[in-house]
């Protein structure tokens, strides 16, 4: 929640973005305090990934303001926002294929977190440990399987030293056991005071980890509250009618292909 001074870690106000006639963000407003953990659900094409694009800087809003820690970042490019503390994973992992797992993480540690030499190597090793990738440190990233790629995606985002971490479908396509492990990692990240916004189709993964759940549909939030309250909300149920609120841990693999709306 916003701290006493009233400065939110992340604040979106009146953010609007559309691709032709498709509105992916319709006058969206959102406030998030340091260390908050928020889940976002919504049907395909609701604008979830676009929301991340707007926050991380891949997409420029047509109107509205985005602030991080009180400072406006609306016009900054993704690299600058990353250095200010926004880390993001892609739904379909995008490792630097020709580089080793360690190098992938090192780039983020040195560029995003601004560490140098020994400090950066130590930080990279630390991130690999936490995400369970130590054994793969010297493997070329292109040889990794899906689980390891998802872990690397998380590791690279974490390595940039974020204050706010955007997780896009990190649990999609994983087994129950793998999802359990992932929830453990996410919880440990949160104990460091890193705020998290987590988009996920595997709703049970979300409800196990988040305190606040938002439902996004047609570029607007239709529900905001505790996970139980939001999932019970008739408006939210309406949105999902006939689509997937997956309550099993191992939901269907991410159905959205590529970057939605792009």
């Amino acid at each position: 929640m916003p701290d006493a001074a009233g400065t939110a870690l992340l604040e979106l106000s009146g953010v609007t973005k559309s691709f032709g006639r498709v509105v992916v963000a319709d006058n969206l407003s959102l406030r998030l305090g340091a260390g908050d953990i928020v889940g976002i659900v919504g049907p395909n094409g609701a604008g979830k990934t676009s929301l991340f694009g707007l926050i991380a800087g891949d997409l420029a809003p047509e109107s509205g303001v985005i602030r991080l820690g009180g400072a406006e970042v609306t016009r900054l490019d993704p690299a600058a926002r990353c250095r200010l503390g926004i880390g993001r994973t892609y739904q379909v992992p995008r490792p630097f294929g020709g580089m080793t797992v360690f190098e992938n993480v090192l780039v983020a540690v040195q560029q995003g977190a601004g560490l140098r030499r020994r400090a950066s190597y130590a930080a990279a090793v630390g991130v690999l440990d936490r995400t369970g990738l130590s054994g793969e440190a010297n493997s070329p990233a292109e040889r990794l399987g899906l689980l390891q790629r998802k872990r690397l995606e998380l590791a690279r985002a974490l390595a940039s030293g974020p204050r706010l971490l955007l997780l896009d479908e990190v649990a999609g396509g994983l087994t129950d056991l793998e999802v359990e492990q992932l929830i453990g990692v996410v919880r440990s990240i949160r104990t460091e005071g890193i705020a998290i916004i987590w988009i996920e189709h595997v709703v049970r993964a979300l409800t196990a980890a988040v305190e606040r759940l938002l439902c996004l549909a047609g570029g607007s939030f239709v529900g905001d509250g505790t996970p139980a309250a939001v999932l019970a909300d008739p408006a939210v149920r309406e949105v999902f009618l006939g689509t997937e609120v997956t309550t099993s841990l191992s939901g269907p693999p991410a159905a959205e292909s590529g970057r939605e709306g792009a």
Partner: protein
Amino acid sequence: MIWVNAVLQGVLLGGLYALFACGLSLMFGVMKVINLAHGDLAVVAAYTALGVVAVTHLPAVWSFVLVVPIFAALGYVVQRTLIQAALNRSVLTTLLVTFGLSVVIENSLLQFLSANSHSLNIGSLVSDSFSIGSQITIAYLDLAIFVIAVAVLLGLQHFLSATKHGRLIRAVADDREAAQLAGADYRHIFGIAAAIAFATVAFAGLAFGMYSSFDPTIGTDQLLLFAFEAVVIGGLGSLWGTLVGGIMLGVVQQVGAQVSSTDQILAGQLFFLLVLVIRPQGITSRRRTA
């Protein structure tokens, strides 16, 4: 022995071609820019060396001390302004812009420095040589250029694989957006890659100016073409491939010249076509599974 000599001369010449080609390959690999002004830049470097020698009275051989850093700086600036502006529109626009740059450079040189050919005067080094047996003669200059070319390529390989900025160049080349999300300012990295490309082409231009005579039109007529052929023959994306491509082109040209002295360039181009038909991904490239 005549043939052995031709092959040997071809290998040495190939080093120079590889030096020409590596900057072209780097710019394409990192920012998907095909720099059509690449050959003209080499010519400008050679003319710049003439100017440097005239002003400072340095021996021509040492002109690289000034010319190469100047070109590196020029590369950074041109990338951050002209080429980046073109890239922001589309990759195709970069073709037009670099083509335009090539035309402007060539005609400016013709206008202000005439169409006369020049060469960098390096005294007796241009003809000094040693012999192996009766039919193999190796010029010190050719050998020196080859050694420098290989050293530059090895240095570049080391830079890309083992340094912080080299790693960034690979990251940006691999996935620009993901690199940005890791905090890397891709425009700056592009600038560094262009600086390296311009520096290597300056090196190549100076070596060429010592090796042969040059005029304003030779950049597009020959140098760009040879660089392209070396890159395509060797296979895009690896410096090792570029060296192999350069050497193969050099050898084919020299062997062709041995058959008939007018067929040197034709032989190279026929070989280039042959590679395109039989192995379009280049000699050293693995076929990539997308």
